[in-house]
């Protein structure tokens, strides 16, 4: 009798195990499909950038040959990686990097300061300012872009690096993000520093800013991606190669008569590398920041 009961239990355990096994298989398959959908265009881009015949690239698209290169070459990269001349994509890349570094650098300072003052400052009308900041967030960038173009052209700022950095340094989204992060830090920390003799700026710089690494990482990545992918704004405010970013420059490969797929692909790969590096560098804090905000509500 006990043997019978035992074997029935064993069978049940076996059934459960096989059900769990099947579920895992389905899960893995789903993850693989999703990963394939996300990764395949990037892989295709990388493969195409290693082919030297732009007509072949076009012909390969739509078939599995798009994912294979028989004679890989770095000639496209050599062509577009110049710092001067007709194909000065190295220069455009450096322009973009400079714009990114300045926007993120100044953005972290300005937005974190504003968030700190809104969270802890003794400013009059703090609540009202915060409401205005949140309200501003819903206004799309595109809707203010024309008045902004008029403003910067009247100020004589067109075709400069400054025009691509200054308007995007302060952002309601990032101010609010910093505000939320700072507001959840304990009041006693502020008060203890105050008792220790720290000024409000010193409290921000020495206590609250070093504690906000997750928020700094999140804002760096989001701001970096935003600055890196700017397209409409630089088209409107840059006329020469001097301050033109790579996102705009790549568009010149897509002419009316012909499309230089080989160079466009190589330039696109170049364009992807810095932002991927930024993400990988800050990924740990970026993820922990989102997890933290989810747990703490």
């Amino acid at each position, binding site marked *: 009798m006990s043997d019978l009961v035992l074997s029935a239990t064993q069978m049940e355990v076996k059934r459960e195990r096989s059900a769990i096994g099947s579920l895992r298989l389905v899960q893995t398959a789903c993850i693989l499909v999703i990963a394939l959908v996300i990764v395949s265009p990037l892989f295709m881009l990388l493969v195409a950038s290693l082919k030297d015949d732009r007509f072949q690239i076009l012909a390969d698209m739509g078939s599995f040959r798009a994912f294979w290169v028989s004679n890989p070459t770095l000639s496209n990269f050599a062509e577009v990686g110049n710092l001067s001349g007709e194909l000065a994509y190295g220069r455009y890349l450096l322009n973009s990097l400079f714009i990114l570094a300045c926007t993120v650098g100044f953005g972290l300072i300005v937005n974190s300061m504003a968030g700190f003052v809104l969270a802890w400052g003794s400013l009059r009308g703090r609540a009202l300012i915060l409401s205005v900041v949140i309200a501003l967030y819903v206004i799309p960038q595109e809707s203010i872009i024309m008045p902004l173009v008029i403003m910067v052209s009247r100020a004589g700022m067109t075709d400069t690096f400054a025009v691509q950095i200054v308007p995007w340094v302060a952002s309601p989204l990032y101010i609010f993000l910093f505000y939320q992060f700072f507001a959840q830090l304990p009041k006693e920390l502020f008060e203890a*520093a105050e008792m*220790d003799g720290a000024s409000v700026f010193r409290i921000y710089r020495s206590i609250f800013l070093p504690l906000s690494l997750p928020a700094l990482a999140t804002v760096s990545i989001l701001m970096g991606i935003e600055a890196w992918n700017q397209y409409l704004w630089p088209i409107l405010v840059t006329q020469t190669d001097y301050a033109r970013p790579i996102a705009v420059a790549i568009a010149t490969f897509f002419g009316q008569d012909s499309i230089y797929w080989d160079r466009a692909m190589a330039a696109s790969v170049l364009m992807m590398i810095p932002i991927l590096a930024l993400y990988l560098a800050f990924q740990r804090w970026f993820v922990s920041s989102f997890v933290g905000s989810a747990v703490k509500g």
Partner: protein
Amino acid sequence: MASVTIQQVRKQYGAVPVIHGVSMDIEDGEFVTLVGPSGCGKSTLLRMLAGLEDISGGEIRIGGRVVNDVAPKERDIAMVFQSYALYPHMTVAENMGFALKLKGEGKAAIEKRVREAADILALGPLLDRLPKQLSGGQRQRVAMGRAIVRHPQVFLFDEPLSNLDAKLRVTMRAEIKDLHQRLKTTTVYVTHDQIEAMTMADRIVVMRGGNVEQIGKPLELYDRPANTFVATFIGSPAMNLFEGSPADEGFVTRDGVFLPMPGDYQGAAAAIYGIRPEHLVIAESGVPATVVVVEPTGSETHVLVKLGPSDANLVLRDRIDLEPGQPVRVAPDLAKLHLFSAQGTRVN
């Protein structure tokens, strides 16, 4: 070190008053404890002293100087917070030296002062650790170290032991008292725990609803509470109180229980009869009662009895075998009697 004078200090949030004109003098080097239930205004008063809250009215003087409008950092005081408020990204040494660094002290001077404070608090081996690598008691000591390293005129403690377990609390209580005896710095200590207040303070300020109920030495408060609030707040288990009125050679409670009272008190307008649990003893000549609960603690036994329909607590030093439901006779020590008026103020 400095004296502290609080004169008619008031605090209100909008139209809601929370401190109603509190006055007290704290002498140079004294250890004063502010004690009271939650919401009595003790922490608010301490924060006003620290400069973290504005004062709605009255005057605060530290070392003779009016500090009503002086910023916290210029009051020359140090505060230990309930949550310790250590800077999580700084080591113990950096936490302790932060105030000195802000003052512009040299690196060598900071190191010397931090080392001195660390020696006093036995924090030497922990100076390079981060707060998250410390236990609760160690964090508490670092918070104290951060305060003493500045050599302030006044120490403020805001319920510093409430986050510690019971055993550690007893140890830290003794450490803080020992520290005060060594440094002799004027100290104002807020707690809701009357045992902490009794064991540590030179003087206790009992607060309720934004008012001071009584100021005095711990045993003064215990032996002669000014009113029923202080009588029940100080001492554990709390004092037994019975409402009623004086009668021939005694006091008759509302429930008709007769309690003995010395003849000298017959004329007093006593409406409440108070006796501490340790001043009620089991004696043949006592009032009939029934045992309800017996709680042996080892050193003493707490007994809850029914005196008629009323409850009464006894604390017995002798080990007597008692069972729930057992009839006994309890007698008060008449020399330790407390009599209060109907309004709750002391009359004897």
